[in-house]
């Protein structure tokens, strides 16, 4: 790693007042930014240290927020909203009885990410803000489009793990596996900016497609701090499910993932459906067509299968990742059946 100065933050106010650069906008092989322009906030540091070791991120100073208690922990607010501090670790989220009971899909996603060692350090905020895993992006030898170069190596190269939806110009998939269930739960982000101001933003509006901006995955600005995630109250009649498939059974990013949040009435009619996909698009992807085909309908295996298929409408797979389409469709189908508490008649073979 290149040398840098380390500054532990003692208060949230101090971070809010500090000038710092959003790591979102910094991934580059351009000359190192000048002094004062390159203060980067560090939480768990898992992804950040990876990028720094690879020479892709060259901060002058790390502003370490990892000890700020105000940004940790899970609390139920008066209106039933669940607030999860941005520094809460994936391990804490996976083990939280409250999250396991009410927001099972989120606990499931947190518990299946990375390894126990990483889950003890990786934070919710860092999981949402981590940079994509595209191997060309992660390689200092490839001056790709997202790093300010002139060529996307994925289209002509090995793109087996890349996006099948909205993959124009750059085919990264968003790497956050927690964003998938958070999207299904209509989560909101609490963002602090200088002067101690804070605002809330739907998670759905946070991420950026390559066609809008090739160089960043989200709209977090320099000087802003992701402080917490808010989950709207979840009625006990709503059930969620998260499923993912990866090549390795342990410590691997998913090839595809699906999160579903459903409300069924006593007649087996779906009153509410929210379906999100991971690892198929440059942003966490909402399967709106699936939701439309589920809501208001009596769910049976046939209805769920056709709704699942509709979730991949408009896909533009690349030659080596067409396998992701049937994979994602199967995950949606199974996750919907699980959340609706219906038997999976096709069994585990599909």
């Amino acid at each position: 790693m290149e040398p840098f100065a380390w500054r532990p933050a003692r208060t949230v106010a101090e971070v809010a007042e500090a000038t710092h650069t959003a790591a979102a906008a910094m991934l580059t092989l351009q000359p190192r930014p000048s002094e004062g322009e390159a203060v980067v906030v560090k939480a768990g540091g898992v992804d950040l240290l990876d990028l720094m070791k690879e020479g892709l991120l060259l901060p002058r100073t790390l502003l370490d927020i990892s000890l700020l208690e105000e940004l940790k922990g899970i609390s139920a607010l008066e209106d039933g909203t669940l607030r999860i501090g941005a520094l809460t670790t994936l391990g804490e989220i996976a083990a939280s009885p409250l999250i396991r009971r009410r927001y099972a899909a989120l606990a499931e996603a947190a518990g299946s990410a990375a390894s126990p060692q990483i889950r003890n350090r990786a934070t919710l905020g860092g999981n949402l803000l981590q940079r994509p895993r595209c191997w060309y992006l992660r390689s200092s030898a490839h001056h790709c489009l997202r790093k300010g170069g002139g060529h996307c190596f994925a289209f002509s190269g090995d793109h087996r793990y890349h996006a099948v939806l909205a993959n124009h110009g750059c085919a990264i998939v968003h790497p956050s596996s927690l964003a998938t269930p958070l999207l299904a739960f209509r989560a909101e982000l609490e963002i602090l900016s200088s002067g101690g101001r804070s605002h809330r933003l739907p998670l759905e509006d946070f991420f950026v497609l390559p066609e809008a901006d090739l160089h960043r995955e989200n709209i977090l600005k320099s000087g802003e701090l992701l402080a917490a995630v808010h989950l709207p109250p979840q009625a006990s009649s709503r059930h969620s499910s998260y499923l993912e498939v990866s090549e390795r059974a342990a410590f691997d990013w998913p090839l595809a993932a699906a999160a579903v949040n459903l409300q069924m009435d006593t007649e087996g009619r779906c009153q509410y459906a929210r379906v999100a996909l991971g690892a198929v698009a440059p942003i966490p992807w909402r399967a709106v067509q699936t939701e439309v085909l589920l809501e208001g309908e009596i769910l049976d295996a046939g209805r769920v299968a056709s709704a699942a298929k509709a979730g991949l409408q408009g896909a533009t797979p690349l030659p080596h990742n067409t396998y992701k389409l049937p994979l994602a469709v199967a995950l949606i189908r199974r996750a919907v059946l699980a959340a609706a508490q219906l038997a999976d008649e096709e069994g585990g073979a599909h």
Partner: protein
Amino acid sequence: MAGLDEDRKNRERADGDSPHSHEMVSIVLHVNGQAHPLPVEPRMTLAEVLRGPLGLKGTKVACDRGACSACTVWLENEVVASCSILAVEVGDRPVTTIEGLTGDRSLHPVQEAFIAHDAVQCGFCTPGLVMSCARLLADNPHPDETDIRTAISGHLCRCGTYPHVLRAILALGKTEGSQHE
């Protein structure tokens, strides 16, 4: 790609002259029950400080990216990848390495079980695996197979000792009234 490599080398040379490049920070690292005051560069990982200045070479570094868990140590009562933590951020939280597992020269029950079940081949991943298994048993004295698989899921063993590790820890977990701490 040669041009890019050249660019990076030039940049590194230029950075070498920066007055802030090698700023040292004085820290006190609490490892295996002992306080170690020492100066470190902010960019040094916990694994580098353990293996370098502190001479605790039992902690291995293989991938240096948090992806193989060879460098597993305990930070307080949690397993962590010491290659993915900066030494400066540890603060006064106690660190336990393979050298401090028993506090003396005796073997920990997990180490005994690894020997009894032949759970070691080349041995490079073994200290990390032992730290994960010892932590599991400290938290859950009678783990089932799923618990063990989860606990060691981050570890890469290219010799493929996994089934032996599983058997060793299952056997140890079945020992009545065993105390593993």
